[in-house]
């Protein structure tokens, strides 16, 4: 079971929900929490664990061997302007490269083999019944999407379908989010009941519907703002899995990074409701 936790707007409580849900479920099952917000991964600030694995993550980019007839085909082929030819040399702008392999594989002189370039690091942690995998993008790298895709590949290779996997996704509705939620069995959209929250929720709903995924909403900081989010969900037949009340104590625990260790009781009722709604006891079987 793959559960993606996403939101249009940033700062609505995605990471709070994903870490608390994973911790709560680890009392019964053996869930895997996956941090796909690779630009700003924060699950590790809220749940601790022992590091059991770390590996550098790479993207493949072409590297010029310096040995070719300078026919110019590679430069003409690249749709991203990542191949520059000046005088008698070829330069690759790896920031612009999308790793499509076209220049490399179509080069008749095999002068552009693909080589690895580091884009970040993946780490795996374990604490009691909870597994956690996070990837962190190197500062200055601008493409989060390949790292997200590779992180998901790592998770599918190491944890089979019996595991409940909870993916903490990046905010927004752009390409990185598409990559993160792709293939999810269920998407939980976290929002807050404010005009900003509602506007961004609608964009997220549009995206998730376009991708044909099943989804529901968790309203965080319930009680602030107005009722427009509830009305929107009702009018559009969108289930609300939980309404987590606005509570300054939750915010304070959260700020300290101790919500999960010391303040989980504030959320347990809501997390249990989500567990029931998704019938996790049935899907996970023995875990």
């Amino acid at each position: 079971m793959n559960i993606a936790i996403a939101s249009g707007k940033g700062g609505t409580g995605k990471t709070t929900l994903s870490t608390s849900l994973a911790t709560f479920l680890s009392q019964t099952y053996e869930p895997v929490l996956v941090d796909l917000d690779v630009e700003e991964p924060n699950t590790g600030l809220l749940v601790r664990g022992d590091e059991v694995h770390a590996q550098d993550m790479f993207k493949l980019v072409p590297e010029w061997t310096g040995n070719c007839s300078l026919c110019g085909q590679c430069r003409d082929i690249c749709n991203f302007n990542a191949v520059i030819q000046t005088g008698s040399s070829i330069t690759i702008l790896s920031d612009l490269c999308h790793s499509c392999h076209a220049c490399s594989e179509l080069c008749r002189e095999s002068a552009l083999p693909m080589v690895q370039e580091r884009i970040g690091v993946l780490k795996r942690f374990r604490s009691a019944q909870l597994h956690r995998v996070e990837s962190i993008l190197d500062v200055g790298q601008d493409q989060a999407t390949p790292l997200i895709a590779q992180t998901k590949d790592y998770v599918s290779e190491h944890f089979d379908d019996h595991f409940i996997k909870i993916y903490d996704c990046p905010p927004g509705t752009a390409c990185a989010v598409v990559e993160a939620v792709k293939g999810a069995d269920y998407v939980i959209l976290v929002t807050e009941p404010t005009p900003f929250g509602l506007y961004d929720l609608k964009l997220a709903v549009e995206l998730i519907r376009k991708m044909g995924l099943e989804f529901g909403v968790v309203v965080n900081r319930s009680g602030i703002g107005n009722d427009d989010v509830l009305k929107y969900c009702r009018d559009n037949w969108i289930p609300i899995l939980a309404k987590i009340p606005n509570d300054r104590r939750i915010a304070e625990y959260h700020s300290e990074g101790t919500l999960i260790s010391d303040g989980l009781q504030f959320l347990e009722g809501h997390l249990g409701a989500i567990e029931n709604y998704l019938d996790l006891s049935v899907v996970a079987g023995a875990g």
Partner: protein
Amino acid sequence: MREIVIISGKGGTGKTSVMASFSYLGGKDLVLADCDVDAADLHMLMQPRIETTADYFGGLKARIDSDHCKNCGLCKDVCRFDSISVKEGIHGVDAMVCEGCGYCQRVCPAEAISMHPEHVGDVYISQSRVGSSMVHARLNAGADNSGKLVSQVKSEAKRIAMELDRKMVLIDGSPGIGCPVISSLTGADYVVLVTEPTQAGLHDLERIYELIKSFNIPCGCIVNKFDINIKITRRIKAFMHTKGIEFIAKIPYDEGFTEAMTEGLTILEYDQNGISTILRNSWERIKVLTQG
């Protein structure tokens, strides 16, 4: 003309609420640019009247002409993005996954594949309710190339500032440290960081600072909701001190921000209490810091 970017690293720190307050204080002397293109919210507080709309085209997308396709499958073999699939024996492209590299087009023996720019959003030039010009955009859900859209929004804003002889372009950036953020920082003169005293806020502040440093742009910081956690607020202050980041202001936790937003107002119009004074002073300070 000075270009000032407001960013936060972490989402939900109050960046857009602060941006709207400065937009209100700066009035018609500013040009506003909403570069948080995949969650563009500034328009809800600035209620812009749209004057012109321009199409935004993202990257190229492959299209397979099924009349000419021989279903040989070569395109599917070369695509590194799994964007080509076969349904009922017919090859087709999933536009949401296609990156537009054109490899498939180049290898197709039947010449059945063509590349087309995809219309993925709109760029608006508007007048905000406080009289300033405002450039904003709408990116369709799931579109890529948001960095390119950010550049387009910014360059429109700069063009307008030149034409109208405005001294400052104020930019609302997006969360994170990836391509749209890098795009919004390119060419900026000053960065205002809006953060919050949480473990996550501090962690993300450190990462966004690394990025700003690589651009060599001076920056200042506003700590929002500072009284949620005084200890972390002090750690943020210490961090800023060691990095030479100007501490512009700290703002207490106040649900007035949400209440004002619900009314479509900035907090300055909603509540004339201490927070308004803090924001006014911050704005005056930023004007001094960016006169350069």
